[in-house]
Protein backbone atom coordinates (compact mmCIF):
# COMPACT_ATOMS: atom_id res chain seq x y z
CA UNK A 1 0.00 0.00 0.00
CA UNK A 2 1.35 3.39 -0.96
CA UNK A 3 1.54 5.54 2.16
CA UNK A 4 3.20 8.68 0.87
CA UNK A 5 3.33 9.98 -2.63
CA UNK A 6 5.35 13.01 -3.61
CA UNK A 7 4.30 14.15 -7.10
CA UNK A 8 6.35 16.49 -9.21
CA UNK A 9 7.39 18.65 -6.29
CA UNK A 10 9.38 21.79 -7.06
CA UNK A 11 10.64 24.34 -4.55
CA UNK A 12 12.02 27.68 -5.63
CA UNK A 13 13.67 30.17 -3.33
CA UNK A 14 13.93 33.80 -4.36
CA UNK A 15 17.34 35.25 -3.61
CA UNK A 16 18.67 38.72 -4.11
CA UNK A 17 21.88 38.98 -6.10
CA UNK A 18 24.91 41.03 -5.07
CA UNK A 19 24.83 44.83 -5.08
CA UNK A 20 22.01 47.31 -4.54
CA UNK A 21 20.69 47.26 -8.09
CA UNK A 22 20.87 43.51 -8.36
CA UNK A 23 17.90 41.72 -9.75
CA UNK A 24 16.14 39.01 -7.88
CA UNK A 25 17.14 35.56 -8.91
CA UNK A 26 15.33 32.29 -8.42
CA UNK A 27 17.11 29.28 -7.01
CA UNK A 28 15.43 25.95 -7.65
CA UNK A 29 16.30 23.80 -4.64
CA UNK A 30 14.03 20.94 -5.60
CA UNK A 31 13.18 20.36 -9.24
CA UNK A 32 10.26 18.14 -10.21
CA UNK A 33 10.84 15.40 -7.67
CA UNK A 34 8.53 12.40 -7.44
CA UNK A 35 8.70 9.29 -5.27
CA UNK A 36 6.52 6.91 -3.30
CA UNK A 37 6.88 5.30 0.09
CA UNK A 38 5.12 2.04 0.88
CA UNK A 39 3.77 1.25 4.32
CA UNK A 40 6.46 -0.41 6.43
CA UNK A 41 9.39 0.30 4.12
CA UNK A 42 12.40 2.58 4.43
CA UNK A 43 13.19 4.88 1.56
CA UNK A 44 16.51 6.64 1.85
CA UNK A 45 17.21 9.91 0.08
CA UNK A 46 20.94 10.47 -0.29
CA UNK A 47 22.86 13.38 -1.71
CA UNK A 48 25.58 15.89 -0.97
CA UNK A 49 25.08 19.34 0.50
CA UNK A 50 22.83 21.48 -1.66
CA UNK A 51 21.30 18.47 -3.38
CA UNK A 52 17.83 19.37 -2.09
CA UNK A 53 17.36 16.29 0.06
CA UNK A 54 16.49 18.18 3.24
CA UNK A 55 14.16 20.56 1.40
CA UNK A 56 12.42 17.52 -0.06
CA UNK A 57 12.08 16.04 3.43
CA UNK A 58 10.64 19.28 4.78
CA UNK A 59 8.09 19.44 2.00
CA UNK A 60 7.10 15.82 2.60
CA UNK A 61 6.69 16.66 6.31
CA UNK A 62 4.60 19.73 5.44
CA UNK A 63 7.15 21.99 7.14
CA UNK A 64 7.63 23.82 3.83
CA UNK A 65 5.17 24.49 1.06
CA UNK A 66 6.23 23.45 -2.43
CA UNK A 67 6.14 25.94 -5.30
CA UNK A 68 4.56 23.26 -7.45
CA UNK A 69 3.55 19.65 -7.12
CA UNK A 70 1.63 17.67 -4.54
CA UNK A 71 2.13 15.64 -1.39
CA UNK A 72 -0.38 12.84 -1.06
CA UNK A 73 -0.62 10.93 2.22
CA UNK A 74 -2.83 7.88 2.63
CA UNK A 75 -4.68 8.82 -0.56
CA UNK A 76 -5.36 12.39 0.58
CA UNK A 77 -3.81 15.45 -0.99
CA UNK A 78 -2.29 17.27 1.99
CA UNK A 79 -0.27 19.85 0.04
CA UNK A 80 -2.49 22.70 1.20
CA UNK A 81 -4.06 21.03 4.22
CA UNK A 82 -5.09 23.28 7.11
CA UNK A 83 -6.66 22.94 10.54
CA UNK A 84 -8.05 19.51 11.38
CA UNK A 85 -6.73 17.96 8.20
CA UNK A 86 -3.20 19.16 8.93
CA UNK A 87 -3.45 18.06 12.56
CA UNK A 88 -4.40 14.58 11.42
CA UNK A 89 -1.43 14.57 9.03
CA UNK A 90 0.91 15.61 11.86
CA UNK A 91 -0.52 12.81 13.93
CA UNK A 92 0.66 10.36 11.30
CA UNK A 93 3.94 11.90 10.17
CA UNK A 94 6.72 12.78 12.59
CA UNK A 95 10.26 14.08 12.10
CA UNK A 96 13.55 13.28 13.84
CA UNK A 97 16.15 15.99 13.28
CA UNK A 98 19.93 15.94 13.09
CA UNK A 99 20.87 17.92 16.17
CA UNK A 100 19.01 16.50 19.16
CA UNK A 101 19.88 19.42 21.43
CA UNK A 102 18.58 22.17 19.19
CA UNK A 103 15.39 20.25 18.44
CA UNK A 104 14.53 19.55 22.11
CA UNK A 105 13.25 22.38 24.28
CA UNK A 106 15.97 22.82 26.93
CA UNK A 107 13.45 24.02 29.53
CA UNK A 108 11.17 20.99 29.25
CA UNK A 109 11.75 17.72 31.03
CA UNK A 110 11.75 14.51 29.01
CA UNK A 111 8.15 14.05 30.10
CA UNK A 112 7.22 17.50 28.80
CA UNK A 113 9.01 16.91 25.51
CA UNK A 114 7.67 13.45 24.84
CA UNK A 115 4.08 14.33 25.68
CA UNK A 116 4.09 17.66 23.80
CA UNK A 117 2.78 16.09 20.55
CA UNK A 118 -0.12 14.64 22.56
CA UNK A 119 -0.93 18.02 24.05
CA UNK A 120 -0.87 19.49 20.57
CA UNK A 121 -3.19 16.75 19.36
CA UNK A 122 -5.45 17.06 22.41
CA UNK A 123 -4.90 13.47 23.47
CA UNK A 124 -4.68 12.35 27.09
CA UNK A 125 -2.72 9.12 27.39
CA UNK A 126 -4.24 6.19 29.22
CA UNK A 127 -2.61 5.67 32.60
CA UNK A 128 -1.32 9.24 32.73
CA UNK A 129 1.62 11.16 31.28
CA UNK A 130 4.22 9.75 33.62
CA UNK A 131 3.49 6.12 32.83
CA UNK A 132 3.19 6.92 29.13
CA UNK A 133 6.58 8.66 29.10
CA UNK A 134 8.27 5.91 31.06
CA UNK A 135 6.96 3.24 28.74
CA UNK A 136 8.22 5.14 25.68
CA UNK A 137 11.59 5.74 27.32
CA UNK A 138 11.94 2.04 27.91
CA UNK A 139 11.12 1.34 24.27
CA UNK A 140 13.90 3.60 23.04
CA UNK A 141 16.41 2.28 25.57
CA UNK A 142 16.42 5.10 28.10
CA UNK A 143 16.21 4.70 31.85
CA UNK A 144 12.56 5.54 32.72
CA UNK A 145 13.67 6.90 36.10
CA UNK A 146 15.17 9.87 34.21
CA UNK A 147 11.83 11.15 32.93
CA UNK A 148 12.06 14.38 34.94
CA UNK A 149 15.51 15.29 33.69
CA UNK A 150 16.28 18.01 31.16
CA UNK A 151 17.93 17.50 27.72
CA UNK A 152 21.24 18.97 28.90
CA UNK A 153 21.53 16.13 31.41
CA UNK A 154 21.78 13.57 28.60
CA UNK A 155 24.53 12.63 26.15
CA UNK A 156 24.06 13.24 22.40
CA UNK A 157 23.03 9.65 21.73
CA UNK A 158 20.56 9.66 24.60
CA UNK A 159 19.14 13.02 23.51
CA UNK A 160 18.55 11.58 20.04
CA UNK A 161 16.64 8.73 21.69
CA UNK A 162 14.43 11.35 23.36
CA UNK A 163 13.78 12.87 19.90
CA UNK A 164 12.83 9.41 18.63
CA UNK A 165 10.56 8.81 21.63
CA UNK A 166 8.80 12.10 20.92
CA UNK A 167 8.28 11.09 17.29
CA UNK A 168 6.76 7.79 18.39
CA UNK A 169 4.44 9.34 20.98
CA UNK A 170 1.58 9.77 18.51
CA UNK A 171 2.08 6.32 16.98
CA UNK A 172 2.87 7.67 13.49
CA UNK A 173 2.68 5.79 10.22
CA UNK A 174 5.67 7.63 8.80
CA UNK A 175 8.82 8.90 10.50
CA UNK A 176 11.06 11.25 8.53
CA UNK A 177 14.65 11.13 9.76
CA UNK A 178 16.64 14.13 8.56
CA UNK A 179 20.31 13.21 9.11
CA UNK A 180 19.16 11.65 12.38
CA UNK A 181 22.41 9.80 13.10
CA UNK A 182 24.91 12.13 11.39
CA UNK A 183 25.97 14.02 14.50
CA UNK A 184 26.60 10.89 16.54
CA UNK A 185 29.85 9.07 17.25
CA UNK A 186 30.22 5.87 15.27
CA UNK A 187 29.59 3.49 18.19
CA UNK A 188 26.51 5.47 19.25
CA UNK A 189 25.39 5.74 15.63
CA UNK A 190 25.39 1.96 15.30
CA UNK A 191 23.21 1.67 18.41
CA UNK A 192 20.71 4.30 17.25
CA UNK A 193 20.47 2.67 13.79
CA UNK A 194 19.81 -0.64 15.51
CA UNK A 195 17.10 1.05 17.59
CA UNK A 196 15.44 2.62 14.53
CA UNK A 197 15.30 -0.75 12.79
CA UNK A 198 13.94 -2.54 15.86
CA UNK A 199 11.19 0.06 16.34
CA UNK A 200 10.15 -0.37 12.72
CA UNK A 201 9.99 -4.16 13.11
CA UNK A 202 7.86 -3.73 16.23
CA UNK A 203 5.46 -1.10 14.92
CA UNK A 204 5.51 -1.46 11.13
CA UNK A 205 5.73 2.23 10.24
CA UNK A 206 7.69 3.67 7.29
CA UNK A 207 10.84 5.75 7.27
CA UNK A 208 12.01 8.41 4.89
CA UNK A 209 15.66 8.45 5.81
CA UNK A 210 17.59 11.52 4.66
CA UNK A 211 21.38 11.11 4.84
CA UNK A 212 24.63 12.04 3.18
CA UNK A 213 26.41 8.93 4.45
CA UNK A 214 25.99 6.12 1.94
CA UNK A 215 27.30 3.43 4.25
CA UNK A 216 24.64 4.29 6.82
CA UNK A 217 21.96 4.27 4.13
CA UNK A 218 23.03 0.82 3.08
CA UNK A 219 22.41 -0.46 6.60
CA UNK A 220 18.88 0.78 6.98
CA UNK A 221 17.04 1.20 3.67
CA UNK A 222 15.13 -1.06 1.31
CA UNK A 223 14.98 1.54 -1.44
CA UNK A 224 17.29 4.43 -2.23
CA UNK A 225 16.81 7.68 -4.14
CA UNK A 226 19.95 9.61 -5.10
CA UNK A 227 19.61 13.39 -5.41
CA UNK A 228 21.91 15.82 -7.17
CA UNK A 229 21.22 19.50 -7.76
CA UNK A 230 17.57 19.31 -6.85
CA UNK A 231 16.73 16.25 -8.93
CA UNK A 232 16.42 12.56 -8.26
CA UNK A 233 19.02 11.08 -10.58
CA UNK A 234 18.45 7.47 -9.65
CA UNK A 235 15.98 5.48 -7.60
CA UNK A 236 15.86 1.76 -7.02
CA UNK A 237 16.14 -1.02 -4.52
CA UNK A 238 19.11 -0.77 -2.24
CA UNK A 239 20.95 -3.61 -3.93
CA UNK A 240 20.36 -2.15 -7.40
CA UNK A 241 21.65 1.29 -6.47
CA UNK A 242 24.67 0.05 -4.52
CA UNK A 243 25.43 -3.04 -6.58
CA UNK A 244 24.70 -1.82 -10.09
CA UNK A 245 24.40 1.96 -10.18
CA UNK A 246 23.19 3.33 -13.52
CA UNK A 247 23.70 7.05 -13.13
CA UNK A 248 27.17 8.61 -13.51
CA UNK A 249 26.72 10.77 -10.42
CA UNK A 250 25.73 7.77 -8.29
CA UNK A 251 28.87 5.99 -9.49
CA UNK A 252 31.06 8.97 -8.57
CA UNK A 253 29.43 9.20 -5.16
CA UNK A 254 29.89 5.51 -4.40
CA UNK A 255 33.51 5.57 -5.55
CA UNK A 256 34.32 8.55 -3.32
CA UNK A 257 33.23 6.89 -0.06
CA UNK A 258 36.34 6.22 2.04
CA UNK A 259 36.78 2.58 2.86
CA UNK A 260 38.81 0.73 5.43
CA UNK A 261 41.55 -1.09 3.53
CA UNK A 262 39.59 -4.17 2.39
CA UNK A 263 42.50 -6.56 2.75
CA UNK A 264 43.18 -5.50 6.36
CA UNK A 265 39.50 -5.59 7.14
CA UNK A 266 39.06 -9.08 5.72
CA UNK A 267 42.03 -10.33 7.73
CA UNK A 268 40.60 -8.93 10.95
CA UNK A 269 37.17 -10.36 10.33
CA UNK A 270 38.64 -13.69 9.30
CA UNK A 271 40.45 -13.87 12.63
CA UNK A 272 37.29 -12.97 14.46
CA UNK A 273 35.31 -15.68 12.72
CA UNK A 274 37.84 -18.39 13.43
Amino acid at each position, binding site marked *: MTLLEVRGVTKEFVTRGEGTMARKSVFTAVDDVSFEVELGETLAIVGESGSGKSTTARIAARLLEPTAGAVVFDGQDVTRARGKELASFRNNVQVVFQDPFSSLNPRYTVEGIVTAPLTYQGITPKGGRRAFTQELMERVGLNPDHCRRYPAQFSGGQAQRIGIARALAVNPKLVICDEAVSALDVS*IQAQVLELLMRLQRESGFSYVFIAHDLAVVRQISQRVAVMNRGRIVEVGTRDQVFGDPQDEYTKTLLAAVP*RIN*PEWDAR*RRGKKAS
Partner: protein
Amino acid sequence: MSDELFVVDNLTVTLPTSRGPVDVVKNVSFTVGRDETVGIVGESGSGKSMTALAVLGLLPRGARTSGSVRLDGAELLGRSDRDLKSVRGNAISMVFQDPLSSLNPYYTVGLQIEEMYRTHRGGTRRAARRVAIEALERVHIPDAARRVDHYPHQFSGGMRQRVMIAMALCCSPSLLIADEPTTALDVTVQAQILELLSELQSTTGTGMMFITHDLAVISSIAQRVLVMQSGDPVEYGTAEQVFSDPRHEYTRMLLDAVPRIDDEVAL
Protein backbone atom coordinates in the same frame (compact mmCIF):
# COMPACT_ATOMS: atom_id res chain seq x y z
CA MET B 1 67.24 10.52 14.51
CA SER B 2 66.48 11.51 10.97
CA ASP B 3 63.27 9.51 10.84
CA GLU B 4 62.04 10.91 14.14
CA LEU B 5 60.90 14.35 13.13
CA PHE B 6 58.38 14.82 15.85
CA VAL B 7 58.22 13.08 19.21
CA VAL B 8 55.42 13.20 21.76
CA ASP B 9 56.53 11.52 24.94
CA ASN B 10 54.20 10.86 27.88
CA LEU B 11 52.09 13.92 27.20
CA THR B 12 49.47 14.63 29.85
CA VAL B 13 47.07 17.57 29.66
CA THR B 14 45.12 18.63 32.72
CA LEU B 15 42.22 21.06 32.53
CA PRO B 16 40.68 22.81 35.53
CA THR B 17 36.95 22.19 35.90
CA SER B 18 34.37 23.13 38.51
CA ARG B 19 34.83 19.65 39.95
CA GLY B 20 38.62 19.89 40.12
CA PRO B 21 41.37 19.14 37.62
CA VAL B 22 40.67 16.54 34.94
CA ASP B 23 43.26 14.76 32.80
CA VAL B 24 41.92 15.08 29.26
CA VAL B 25 45.05 13.57 27.72
CA LYS B 26 46.83 10.85 29.69
CA ASN B 27 50.39 9.73 28.99
CA VAL B 28 50.17 9.89 25.24
CA SER B 29 53.28 8.96 23.26
CA PHE B 30 53.84 8.74 19.53
CA THR B 31 56.34 9.79 16.89
CA VAL B 32 55.94 11.19 13.41
CA GLY B 33 58.69 10.58 10.90
CA ARG B 34 59.51 12.72 7.88
CA ASP B 35 57.19 11.87 5.03
CA GLU B 36 54.99 10.00 7.44
CA THR B 37 51.34 10.44 8.37
CA VAL B 38 50.25 9.42 11.84
CA GLY B 39 46.51 9.24 12.34
CA ILE B 40 44.95 9.99 15.70
CA VAL B 41 41.48 8.57 15.87
CA GLY B 42 38.83 8.63 18.56
CA GLU B 43 35.26 9.59 19.30
CA SER B 44 34.20 12.93 20.74
CA GLY B 45 35.85 13.61 24.07
CA SER B 46 38.72 11.22 23.38
CA GLY B 47 41.33 13.99 23.72
CA LYS B 48 42.53 13.88 20.12
CA SER B 49 42.08 17.60 19.46
CA MET B 50 43.48 18.53 22.88
CA THR B 51 46.64 16.64 21.95
CA ALA B 52 47.02 18.84 18.87
CA LEU B 53 46.34 22.05 20.77
CA ALA B 54 48.86 21.08 23.45
CA VAL B 55 51.54 20.63 20.81
CA LEU B 56 51.02 24.19 19.59
CA GLY B 57 50.58 25.74 23.03
CA LEU B 58 46.99 26.67 22.20
CA LEU B 59 45.33 25.10 25.22
CA PRO B 60 42.69 27.01 27.15
CA ARG B 61 43.83 29.18 30.04
CA GLY B 62 44.64 27.27 33.19
CA ALA B 63 45.56 24.05 31.39
CA ARG B 64 48.63 22.22 32.65
CA THR B 65 50.84 19.91 30.65
CA SER B 66 53.53 17.43 31.49
CA GLY B 67 55.75 15.16 29.43
CA SER B 68 57.72 16.15 26.38
CA VAL B 69 56.95 17.31 22.83
CA ARG B 70 59.98 17.65 20.57
CA LEU B 71 60.32 18.82 17.01
CA ASP B 72 63.71 18.03 15.49
CA GLY B 73 64.97 17.47 19.01
CA ALA B 74 63.86 20.86 20.35
CA GLU B 75 61.43 20.85 23.29
CA LEU B 76 58.16 22.68 22.68
CA LEU B 77 56.30 22.15 25.95
CA GLY B 78 56.66 24.97 28.43
CA ARG B 79 57.99 27.44 25.86
CA SER B 80 56.62 30.97 26.07
CA ASP B 81 53.78 32.05 23.84
CA ARG B 82 56.09 34.51 22.10
CA ASP B 83 58.57 31.79 21.45
CA LEU B 84 55.90 29.48 20.06
CA LYS B 85 54.62 32.15 17.69
CA SER B 86 57.73 31.65 15.62
CA VAL B 87 56.98 27.92 15.49
CA ARG B 88 53.27 28.06 14.68
CA GLY B 89 52.57 28.45 11.01
CA ASN B 90 56.26 28.12 10.36
CA ALA B 91 57.79 24.84 11.48
CA ILE B 92 54.41 23.42 12.48
CA SER B 93 51.21 24.53 10.87
CA MET B 94 47.64 23.49 11.24
CA VAL B 95 44.53 22.93 9.14
CA PHE B 96 41.22 22.98 10.97
CA GLN B 97 37.82 21.46 10.28
CA ASP B 98 35.96 24.60 9.34
CA PRO B 99 37.80 26.78 6.82
CA LEU B 100 35.14 29.51 6.93
CA SER B 101 35.71 30.22 10.59
CA SER B 102 39.49 30.01 10.25
CA LEU B 103 39.70 32.53 7.42
CA ASN B 104 39.13 36.25 7.92
CA PRO B 105 36.09 37.26 5.83
CA TYR B 106 37.34 40.86 5.49
CA TYR B 107 40.58 40.07 3.67
CA THR B 108 41.29 38.43 0.35
CA VAL B 109 42.80 34.98 0.61
CA GLY B 110 45.95 36.35 -1.01
CA LEU B 111 46.46 38.91 1.75
CA GLN B 112 46.00 36.24 4.38
CA ILE B 113 48.60 33.97 2.83
CA GLU B 114 50.96 36.92 2.33
CA GLU B 115 50.56 37.94 5.97
CA MET B 116 51.40 34.45 7.12
CA TYR B 117 54.44 34.29 4.89
CA ARG B 118 55.81 37.74 5.72
CA THR B 119 55.31 37.22 9.47
CA HIS B 120 57.74 34.35 9.36
CA ARG B 121 59.92 35.04 6.37
CA GLY B 122 59.75 38.79 5.86
CA GLY B 123 60.47 40.09 2.37
CA THR B 124 58.53 42.42 0.14
CA ARG B 125 54.81 42.32 -0.48
CA ARG B 126 55.50 41.65 -4.11
CA ALA B 127 57.54 38.55 -3.28
CA ALA B 128 54.90 37.38 -0.80
CA ARG B 129 52.21 37.77 -3.42
CA ARG B 130 54.19 35.54 -5.74
CA VAL B 131 54.43 32.97 -2.95
CA ALA B 132 50.67 33.20 -2.40
CA ILE B 133 49.89 32.57 -6.06
CA GLU B 134 52.32 29.67 -6.18
CA ALA B 135 50.79 28.25 -3.02
CA LEU B 136 47.31 28.39 -4.55
CA GLU B 137 48.60 26.75 -7.70
CA ARG B 138 50.17 23.98 -5.68
CA VAL B 139 46.77 23.09 -4.19
CA HIS B 140 45.28 23.13 -7.71
CA ILE B 141 43.07 26.18 -7.45
CA PRO B 142 42.31 27.02 -11.07
CA ASP B 143 43.18 30.52 -12.24
CA ALA B 144 45.24 31.21 -9.10
CA ALA B 145 46.57 34.58 -10.29
CA ARG B 146 43.01 35.91 -10.34
CA ARG B 147 41.61 33.93 -7.41
CA VAL B 148 44.32 35.32 -5.10
CA ASP B 149 42.31 38.56 -4.93
CA HIS B 150 39.05 36.87 -3.99
CA TYR B 151 37.45 36.79 -0.56
CA PRO B 152 36.78 33.55 1.35
CA HIS B 153 33.03 33.63 0.68
CA GLN B 154 33.71 33.52 -3.06
CA PHE B 155 35.11 30.01 -2.72
CA SER B 156 33.20 26.74 -2.27
CA GLY B 157 33.80 24.66 0.87
CA GLY B 158 36.31 22.38 -0.83
CA MET B 159 38.17 25.29 -2.45
CA ARG B 160 38.29 27.08 0.90
CA GLN B 161 39.90 24.06 2.48
CA ARG B 162 42.45 24.13 -0.36
CA VAL B 163 43.16 27.76 0.53
CA MET B 164 43.72 26.73 4.16
CA ILE B 165 46.12 24.02 3.04
CA ALA B 166 47.93 26.49 0.77
CA MET B 167 48.30 28.85 3.71
CA ALA B 168 49.47 26.08 6.02
CA LEU B 169 52.14 24.99 3.57
CA CYS B 170 53.39 28.41 2.39
CA CYS B 171 56.26 28.46 4.92
CA SER B 172 57.24 24.86 4.12
CA PRO B 173 56.56 23.49 7.63
CA SER B 174 58.20 20.25 8.69
CA LEU B 175 55.02 19.14 10.44
CA LEU B 176 51.40 19.66 9.40
CA ILE B 177 48.64 19.08 11.95
CA ALA B 178 45.30 18.43 10.26
CA ASP B 179 42.38 18.38 12.69
CA GLU B 180 39.32 16.83 11.03
CA PRO B 181 40.22 18.62 7.76
CA THR B 182 37.66 16.76 5.66
CA THR B 183 34.86 16.25 8.18
CA ALA B 184 32.76 19.21 7.02
CA LEU B 185 33.17 18.35 3.33
CA ASP B 186 31.00 16.35 0.98
CA VAL B 187 32.26 12.88 0.25
CA THR B 188 33.38 13.60 -3.32
CA VAL B 189 35.23 16.74 -2.17
CA GLN B 190 36.69 14.83 0.76
CA ALA B 191 38.20 12.33 -1.65
CA GLN B 192 39.84 15.17 -3.59
CA ILE B 193 41.29 16.82 -0.47
CA LEU B 194 42.67 13.53 0.84
CA GLU B 195 44.32 12.95 -2.50
CA LEU B 196 45.74 16.47 -2.45
CA LEU B 197 47.20 16.01 1.04
CA SER B 198 48.89 12.74 0.05
CA GLU B 199 50.25 14.31 -3.12
CA LEU B 200 51.63 17.36 -1.32
CA GLN B 201 53.18 15.20 1.33
CA SER B 202 55.03 13.10 -1.20
CA THR B 203 56.40 16.20 -2.94
CA THR B 204 57.30 18.20 0.18
CA GLY B 205 58.18 15.47 2.67
CA THR B 206 56.14 17.13 5.41
CA GLY B 207 55.27 14.95 8.38
CA MET B 208 51.58 14.90 9.14
CA MET B 209 49.50 14.41 12.26
CA PHE B 210 46.01 13.66 10.99
CA ILE B 211 43.19 13.83 13.52
CA THR B 212 39.80 12.37 12.72
CA HIS B 213 36.87 10.39 14.05
CA ASP B 214 36.59 8.54 10.73
CA LEU B 215 38.38 5.19 10.65
CA ALA B 216 37.94 4.75 6.91
CA VAL B 217 39.64 8.10 6.26
CA ILE B 218 42.51 7.13 8.58
CA SER B 219 42.90 3.83 6.78
CA SER B 220 43.33 5.61 3.47
CA ILE B 221 45.88 8.20 4.59
CA ALA B 222 47.90 7.14 7.65
CA GLN B 223 50.87 4.82 7.94
CA ARG B 224 50.62 4.68 11.71
CA VAL B 225 47.58 5.00 13.95
CA LEU B 226 46.97 6.02 17.54
CA VAL B 227 43.52 5.18 18.91
CA MET B 228 42.34 7.30 21.83
CA GLN B 229 39.44 6.92 24.25
CA SER B 230 38.57 9.39 27.04
CA GLY B 231 42.11 10.76 27.03
CA ASP B 232 43.79 7.37 27.12
CA PRO B 233 45.96 6.07 24.31
CA VAL B 234 44.40 2.62 23.86
CA GLU B 235 46.29 1.36 20.84
CA TYR B 236 49.27 2.48 18.79
CA GLY B 237 50.75 0.68 15.83
CA THR B 238 51.12 0.57 12.08
CA ALA B 239 47.86 1.13 10.22
CA GLU B 240 48.04 -2.43 8.96
CA GLN B 241 48.40 -3.86 12.46
CA VAL B 242 45.65 -1.72 14.00
CA PHE B 243 43.17 -2.46 11.23
CA SER B 244 43.98 -6.11 10.58
CA ASP B 245 44.90 -7.27 14.07
CA PRO B 246 43.67 -4.81 16.72
CA ARG B 247 44.90 -5.72 20.20
CA HIS B 248 42.52 -3.61 22.22
CA GLU B 249 38.84 -4.34 22.84
CA TYR B 250 37.87 -0.70 22.22
CA THR B 251 39.55 -0.63 18.79
CA ARG B 252 37.69 -3.81 17.85
CA MET B 253 34.37 -2.34 19.01
CA LEU B 254 35.04 0.83 17.03
CA LEU B 255 35.92 -1.12 13.88
CA ASP B 256 32.83 -3.28 14.25
CA ALA B 257 30.64 -0.17 14.55
CA VAL B 258 31.76 1.35 11.24
CA PRO B 259 28.99 0.89 8.67
CA ARG B 260 30.38 -0.78 5.53
CA ILE B 261 29.40 0.29 2.09
CA ASP B 262 30.57 -2.85 0.35
CA ASP B 263 28.99 -5.37 2.68
CA GLU B 264 25.93 -7.31 1.74
CA VAL B 265 23.62 -6.65 4.66
CA ALA B 266 20.38 -8.46 5.18
CA LEU B 267 17.36 -6.52 6.28
